[in-house]
């Protein structure tokens, strides 16, 4: 299939792909690869100015070309369905969930109400029952209440289940899922992925699963198709693709993904250099040649064909026979390991950053009546008695679901949010809670890198000007020549060409913008850097480059890093110490190697269980959390986790706050269950976690 808008830019070129009934095919690729376009094209849904230039879509052996609009509607109603990426945006905000699911039922072309008209007609009754059954089938326990809700009243995970139920209402032969878990918490993602797997087995639906994450695909799919710059570059059964990728791009993607237990200094990630070519500027030869570590002259001149490498395996590369035979290593040579670094030896006698009993409550507006009766004001407890230390030359990783207080903590540390109680100290000296009360000379010692640097950088300032401002205001640089020289060295430090100083952020890619944001934070030579989801939202190959950069910068400059991420694999890779947060509290903290090994806090155990790993078969026994976290306003008494805790002891956990327990490895866990009991009950979730010194995994083995 070739597909492109009228202007003549081909978004997809010669892609062909089969999905058998009851199987799931994963479609992976980075942004710009054309995967979403392909997914929609498979549904015969083409955005306004697009058209299929060549090729066709067949369903059940019958071509779907030239359908009338009525036939197309019938196709969408009864045979193919989409599960969209952003469930909140994809549901109508003004209609109840029940109504939206009901109008998606295959049998009813007008789409009748699922609720509200209860008992009005036998047909309405049937629709209502069908809606409730569908909602229940995707694991929504209180189906009647969910059906009567509006989308914004549901949590993200529930919204995505509703979207899945809606798609299933058509009893489709093909289900196209477009990044259905991308915006969800890892624990929610895990339950949705389990659901997808279950549906496929129960209904025999064919699934085309689009994702940027190889790990997510590994968990749900039978086969994986790798898309790059609008072309299919490799297509193989999941296990084989991960064990023995034939295309250098696939290899590059796998090498970009950190896995839990990987040592960032002994075995750094190998990012893919360069950028994906744009659709109108594809090279004449292999589309990947410009970024390929093993490209030869032929690759630049001649476009490779999609060869059948083995039964069920296809690859588009001139050099796959050499790679398959093992005579050619398609990996980029790794950077020489960073200089020996004793990560465990903290230097200095005070932690670079210490946070003591930090709390932040947002009081809720109290009605006049409640105020008159002197009821205590209720508050959202965003942060509750959190204490942490970050030492120079070390990275503290902060993990937790959304709403766990990670970002509130970061904002309190840098002074953007004023905490309700507790204090923040830099190298032993207490900092004023408010940013405007802090000494200007000290502001430069503590800097922050935000998630979306495209928004955090002023779009009208050139990169050079953005970097010059902190130099002038906080680092005391005076003369133009000095500033220019320091801007140049900052760009060099983050591996950007000096010419970028003249560009504005809009001209940079996401990864380049994030490098500029890091350079800006480094301008004042801070001793403490706070990263708030700073690599989330980047493509894996770009993310790998930033993670390597952070490691190198830390080795060179000996900064203390507080690194916040919802991605446990990234945190495990980068952090020397890990603190796990739940509902505003730290529930477990300690050296990374200890946190990643049992005994776990039951919440940590659930988080780690939810991390999708590349290993398609060797998944340890999983712990799943059911239900949503309790509201931070009405926290249950006792341990706040007891409502969802699979290991809850019952009454004790419901009544009393858990004690802190410490073990020999130096980690602390807030739990009623003694650590000795936890360690016997739990299995290690990552075989090599913590064995950092064990060195790289055997060549070619599944990471």
């Amino acid at each position, binding site marked *: 299939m070739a597909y492109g808008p009228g202007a003549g830019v081909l978004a997809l070129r010669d892609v062909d792909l089969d999905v058998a009934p009851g199987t799931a095919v994963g479609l992976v690729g980075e942004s710009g690869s054309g995967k979403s376009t392909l997914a929609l094209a498979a549904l015969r*849904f083409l955005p306004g100015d697009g058209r299929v230039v060549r090729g066709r879509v067949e369903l059940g052996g019958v071509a779907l070309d030239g359908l009338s609009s009525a036939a197309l509607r*019938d196709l969408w109603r009864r045979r193919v*369905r*989409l599960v969209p990426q952003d469930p909140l945006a994809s*549901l109508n*905000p003004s209609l109840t969930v029940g109504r939206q699911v009901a109008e998606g039922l295959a049998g009813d072309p007008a*789409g009748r109400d699922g609720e509200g008209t209860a008992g009005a007609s036998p047909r309405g009754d049937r629709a209502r029952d069908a809606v409730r059954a569908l909602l229940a089938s995707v694991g929504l326990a209180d189906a009647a209440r969910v059906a009567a809700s509006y989308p914004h009243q549901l949590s993200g995970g529930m919204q995505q289940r509703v979207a899945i139920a*809606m798609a299933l209402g058509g009893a489709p032969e093909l289900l196209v899922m477009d990044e259905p878990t991308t915006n969800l918490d890892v624990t929610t993602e895990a339950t949705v992925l389990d659901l997808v797997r279950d549906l496929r087995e129960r209904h025999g639906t064919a699934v085309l699963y689009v994702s940027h994450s190889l790990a997510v695909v590994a968990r749900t799919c039978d086969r994986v198709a790798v898309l790059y710059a609008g072309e299919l570059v490799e297509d193989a059964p999941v296990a084989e693709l991960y064990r023995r990728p034939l295309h250098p791009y696939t290899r590059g993607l796998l090498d970009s993904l950190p896995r839990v237990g990987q040592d960032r200094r002994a075995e750094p990630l190998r990012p893919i250099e360069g950028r994906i070519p744009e659709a109108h500027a594809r090279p004449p030869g292999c589309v990947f040649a410009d970024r390929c570590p093993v490209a030869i002259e032929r690759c630049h001149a001649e476009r490779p064909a999609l060869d059948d490498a083995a039964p069920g395996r296809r690859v588009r590369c001139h050099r796959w026979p050499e790679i398959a035979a093992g005579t050619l290593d398609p990996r980029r040579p790794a950077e020489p390991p960073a200089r020996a670094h004793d990560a465990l030896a903290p230097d200095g006698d005070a932690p670079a950053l210490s946070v003591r009993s930090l709390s932040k409550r947002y009081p809720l507006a109290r009605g006049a009546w409640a105020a008159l009766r002197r009821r205590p004001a209720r508050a959202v407890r965003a942060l509750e008695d959190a204490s942490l230390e970050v030492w120079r030359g070390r990275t503290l990783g902060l993990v937790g679901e959304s709403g766990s207080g990670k970002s509130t903590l970061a904002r309190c540390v840098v002074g953007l949010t004023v905490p309700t109680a507790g204090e923040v100290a830099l190298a032993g000296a207490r900092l004023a809670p408010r940013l405007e009360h802090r000494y200007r000379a000290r502001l430069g010692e503590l800097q922050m890198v935000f998630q979306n640097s495209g928004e955090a950088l002023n779009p009208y300032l050139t990169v050079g000007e953005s970097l010059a401002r902190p130099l002038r205001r906080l680092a005391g640089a005076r003369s133009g020549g000095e500033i220019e020289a320091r801007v140049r060295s900052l760009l060099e430090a983050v591996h950007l060409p000096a010419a970028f100083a003249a560009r504005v952020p809009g001209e940079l890619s996401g990864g380049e913008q994030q490098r500029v944001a890091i350079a800006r934070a480094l301008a004042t030579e801070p001793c403490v850097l706070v990263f708030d989801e700073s690599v989330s939202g980047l493509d894996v190959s770009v993310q790998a480059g930033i993670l390597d950069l952070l490691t190198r910068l830390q080795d060179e400059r000996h900064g203390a890093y507080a690194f916040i991420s919802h991605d446990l694999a990234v945190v495990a890779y980068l952090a020397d110490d890990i603190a796990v947060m739940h509902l505003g509290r730290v529930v477990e903290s300690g050296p990374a190697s200890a946190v990643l090994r049992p005994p776990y806090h039951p919440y940590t155990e659930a988080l780690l269980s939810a991390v999708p790993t590349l290993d398609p078969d060797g998944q340890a026994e999983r712990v799943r959390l059911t239900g949503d976290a309790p509201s931070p306003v009405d926290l249950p008494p006792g341990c706040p986790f007891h409502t969802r805790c699979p290991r809850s002891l019952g009454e004790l956990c419901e009544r009393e706050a858990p004690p802190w327990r410490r073990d020999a490895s130096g980690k602390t866990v807030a739990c009623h269950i003694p650590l000795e009991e936890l360690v016997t009950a739990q299995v290690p979730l990552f075989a090599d976690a913590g064995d950092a010194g064990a060195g790289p995994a055997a060549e070619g083995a599944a990471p």
Partner: protein
Amino acid sequence: MTRFLARRLGYLLVTLLVTSLLIFLITQLLPGDVARVILGREASEPALQALRERLGLTRPAPVQYLTWLVAFLRGDWGTSFATEQAIRPLVLERLGNSLMLAGLTLAIAVPLAIALGVAAALRAGRWPDAVISVASLAVVGLPEFVTGLVLIEVFAFRLRWLPANASIAPEAGFLEALPMLILPALTATLVLLAYIARLTRASVLEELGRAYVRTAVLKGLPPRVVLVRHVLRNALLPTVTVVAISVGWLISGLIVVENVFNYPGLGRLLTFAIDRRDVPLLQAISLVAVLAFALANLVADVLYAVLNPRIRLG
């Protein structure tokens, strides 16, 4: 929702109180001596003084304000200086006329503007969109006295379909008055039309681009269902607000239109009051106009909340 309503009503009362004070202060600042206006240039100073005292103009301003406000609230709106009639029945009669004209205008303008806006949005960038946009902008650029006179020339003088003069009798019922109302209503419609149509076009276009519309299309719903049930339900929210607010303008702001057609509405009464420096009448009309605006805003807010579950259910 109850709390929301109670709070909005509270705001409404505060607004009215503050504006009543403003109205009082402004009318105090108007140039000219009321007594001299009433009695004429030749009046003697003792006569003027006697009148001032009879009208209460010699008392301190705060006392004047409070007595005026309390009397107003009790339904005693005073007597017009100019006509020496009781003000309340006069203003209420004119208010009824204005409401009638406003109602007819909305009945024409809103469906027409929404239809044009939706039509333009569905054909965005193509010629129907361009025609609708250019035509509605061209019309809105013309002042009401021009469009009004053109309408009179065409429909009253050339075609002789409708009367040019809209001076309806006080006792006329709606059906009786209807032929006379059409031309003023059309003139007012032309003012509102472009604004509502362009707003509708913009919000329909915005909603059409949203992901939930794609979801609806991919359920295989017919285009009409997608448009009415999904797109319009969300796209018309801002339109509803603007329409409700424009009611305030239609009731008291149609000064030019009412003058062109000689229509006995609040707007023309207002110009009359200003002309004659009829302070009590002016104050009463202003306060009624403010009340109309404030109520229209309240209705807009409440409608928005009722139609939008994200507001209604937080």
